């Protein structure tokens, strides 16, 4: 039987220290006991979903955070074993662990490798010590290098390294140093993110005092880095991602291809069975809900009505949940696929949605093609780097999640097909 494929994401909301720019859900200061309890809760949730995931083969796993590698090694291997036990993980699955410098050792890395992890994602962010301090990272360049070398030694042949541009104190020159340093290490994959100041982070509060490169310098950093990395043999395949050919991140590609993925753990997001949903950013509630004994089958609420434990658990866990309407899927696909340098193939679009992309969007996109923001090769529409960098602006001009239903309604009625 040909099973559907699925990506699995596991969220680990722990960090040794919280970075000043980060708005992912994580906390510092948790003890081993809390972490073990959380992992137990995760195992319970995996068991909960084992049935629903039966028709799928998991071909990518991503354990992210937070800093998953702050978990005691034993805890982590228990988790990984649980994943293999609960789900049908393909032999050739890509299995990524976010592993931050200064939280790993040769010993721990060997354990992860042996447990089944085959890809690491490491946060370097910058090769300049002053910039690392400004980002409130806990590691130094030397820490990173030691961890990276240890990972190679432990047998990891697929490593991603995260770097950032547009960060405090950074200059074009210092960014080049980071790029030089990193490419010399020859990782398989590089993610290069522009700093975005998120509301509610320490950076947002001190926004006015941060010494940041201006918009133009930042843009130049982005475009220069694309040229530089291309020259070094890294293919620019997504707005912020570069890889040696064949080493593109399979898991992240699922996000951009609108393929299915299940995210477990607090704050994790899923696109599963036609629904998008996420779990609450609240570890306490998550653990309580998972630990609640549901074998009784039901419970009485205060007003005496009986509700199903499953419902109770879902209500306690779920933050957001909605079905993606067919019309909305088109909008999502365009929004996400255009993040990729391959862009949207009219032929693939037709196969997926039964719609003519040219007829729907060709006219709207002409302006951008004529002015160097996009390319069109007869089949595929794609952003150029210049277009990618203003892609929100262009997408907000061309996309209308509401109107699509109308357009599609018209087309489905006949004329186009």
């Amino acid at each position: 039987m040909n099973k559907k494929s699925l990506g699995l994401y596991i969220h680990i909301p722990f960090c040794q220290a919280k970075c000043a720019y980060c708005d992912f859900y994580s906390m510092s200061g948790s003890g081993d006991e809390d972490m073990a309890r959380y992992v137990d809760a995760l195992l319970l949730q995996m068991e909960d979903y084992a049935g629903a995931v039966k028709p799928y083969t998991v071909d990518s796993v991503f354990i992210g955070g937070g800093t998953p590698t702050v978990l005691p090694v034993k805890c982590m291997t228990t988790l990984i074993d649980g994943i293999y036990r609960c789900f049908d993980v393909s032999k050739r699955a890509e299995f990524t662990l976010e592993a931050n410098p200064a939280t790993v050792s040769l010993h721990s890395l060997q354990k992860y490798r042996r447990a089944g992890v085959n890809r690491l994602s490491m946060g370097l962010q910058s090769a300049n010590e002053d910039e690392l301090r400004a980002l409130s990272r806990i590691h130094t360049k030397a820490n990173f290098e030691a961890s990276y070398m240890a990972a190679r030694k432990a047998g990891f042949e697929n490593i991603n390294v995260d770097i950032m541009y547009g960060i405090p104190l950074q200059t074009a020159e210092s960014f080049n140093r980071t790029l030089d340093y990193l490419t010399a290490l020859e990782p398989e994959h590089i993610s290069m993110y522009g700093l975005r100041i998120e509301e509610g982070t320490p950076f947002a509060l001190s926004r006015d005092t941060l010494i940041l490169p201006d918009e133009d310098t930042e843009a130049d950093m982005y475009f220069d880095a694309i040229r530089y990395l291309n020259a070094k043999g890294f293919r620019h395949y997504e707005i912020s991602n570069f890889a040696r050919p064949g080493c593109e991140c399979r898991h992240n590609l699922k996000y951009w291809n609108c393929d299915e993925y299940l995210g477990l753990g607090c704050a994790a997001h899923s696109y599963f069975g036609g629904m998008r949903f996420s779990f609450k950013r609240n570890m306490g509630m998550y653990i309580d809900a998972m630990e609640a004994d549901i074998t009784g089958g039901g419970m009485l609420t205060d007003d005496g009505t009986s509700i199903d434990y499953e419902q109770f658990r879902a209500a306690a866990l779920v933050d957001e949940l909605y079905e993606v309407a067919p019309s909305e899927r088109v909008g999502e696909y365009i929004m996400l696929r255009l993040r990729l340098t391959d862009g949207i193939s009219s032929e693939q679009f037709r196969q997926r949605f039964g719609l003519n992309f040219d007829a729907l969007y060709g006219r709207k996109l002409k302006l951008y093609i004529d002015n160097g923001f996009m390319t069109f090769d007869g089949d595929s529409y794609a952003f150029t780097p210049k277009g990618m960098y203003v892609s929100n602006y262009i997408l907000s001009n061309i996309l209308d999640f509401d109107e699509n239903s109308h357009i599609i309604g018209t087309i489905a009625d006949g004329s186009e097909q």
Partner: protein
Amino acid sequence: MPSEKQSKIRNFSIIAHIDHGKSTLADRILEYTRTVATRDMEEQLLDNMDLERERGITIKARAVKLDYHAPDGEVYTLNLIDTPGHVDFNYEVSRSLNACEGALLIVDATQGVEAQTLANAYLAIDNNLEIVPVINKIDLPSADVEKVRGEIEDIIGIPAEGCPAVSAKVGLNIDQVLDKIVSDIPCPEGDENAPLRALIFDSYYDSYLGVVVNIRVMEGSLRAGDRIRLMSTGAEFDVVDVGYMEPFGLKSGEVLSAGDVGYITASIKSVGDTRVGDTVTLAENPAAEPLPGFQEVHPMVYAGIYPADGARYGDLKDALEKLQLNDAALTFEAETSAALGFGFRCGFLGLLHMEIIEERLEREFNLDLITTAPSVIYKIEKKSGETVFIDNPSNYPNPDEISVAYEPMVKASIITPPDYVGGLMELCQDRRGEFINMTYIDTDRAELHYNLPLNEIIYDFFDALKSRSKGYASLDYELKGYEPSKLVKLDILLNGDIVDALSFIVHEEKAYGRARKICEKLKDNIPRQLFEVPVQAAIGGKVIARETVRAMRKDVLAKCYGGDITRKKKLLEKQKEGKKKMRQLGSVEVSPEAFMAVLKLDDES
């Protein structure tokens, strides 16, 4: 000799500097006379427009009749006529004051006499009113009653010995105020048997009654069924009803006679027929002469008003029509702008009047507006011999068609403490003022006389005057007529296209400074677009200033993993929402906020 009835009437208004407690005192007087039971009191009953309550100013004149049971056992009729308090409405104020024999002058016990106190006091003195000073806010710890008493005597020059010291807020000594009204303010006089002369001091439209005209009868009398004539136009109407303004509505009466303040209804359709200051007489037995002081009120300032959402043009039209029912000074006619779409060119008495109309449209009718820079009316003599009046820069003729251009001038008088004379002269010079003379009213006050172009004072002159004099200087002005002037029309171009809504007429000497400033402001306010946008200012095709809005380089969500797609969708939807409000000017998108920022450009250049 006043009649028995007249001897029991007191007609008065309350004048004060802003925030000195005029409306609160009015409330207390109403409450004290039991006209309004305390439980029915809503704060500041007289100011019943939300806008008035918030700004603490009175926009329209309003009157109310109170019965006061005095300690002497007599019952007096007190007619309180509330007045607006801004130079835009000076004419209305003077008419309201004309309807009274006296005025309460409120002075804040913590602030003392201020500019507006003075200006209002003089206006009242000019109208021969008996002034009763009242010192308010004595409940405040920093109140200094004796000092303020001294100021009233020294600066205004009216006796303040024994004047009531009150707290309107807590209701202290309100009885003294009422006693003073009865004892100090003269009762009205006027022959009840003479031909009717009644002064219109306000009118408003009621959808059931038609126009309700508020009048003060000076001579003669009037009752339902009479045929009246409005002396400025000769228009005649049959009176349907007469009566009095009571706090919670109109109350019919049998007759209004000399000394009375009341209303008439006569199936009048438009407030435009019942001009403030006009005289009402009887068609049968008309008075020989109207009451003095009537002026026809003309708009002095024009601006284009457009709905931010073009689809609401019809709503805007309805709203303007409704406002006009009650505001004869407001004029409007349809106009179109390539940049802003369909809208109206509206005429106003002045800037405050314009702001009030804008705010009422936005609040009471829930409209989002874009208003173009205000303009005065220019007179152009063309080479062809034709003379045209221009209230919209878009209609300004080409420079080579113009023989002589004229702009309206005003005679301005500024009263200020001597300390600020230097700064104010500088201000007037800067606004192309022509100095006439300066006189000292007394050692504490100088009066500056200037001829000033109206277009230099309509915008923010009043604010500049206040800020340069710490609020003490007051301004009064009257139109003086047209004078030749070197005017130019300045066009603003975005991406090479003229944005008609941004064109304005300016004196040649100021064109360059204004041009540069507008270009800078546009550059700062126009969001970066995908393309570079040249911003230019030109006179008749010649570019005199230029800036460039650089192309946007970054608008991207770099990180879109962790699988949170919903957030990214919401972000795009929000961005899309924002774009819906954008105005497309050629190939350039400009937010209404950016538009307003540029249009609200102050004159300090």
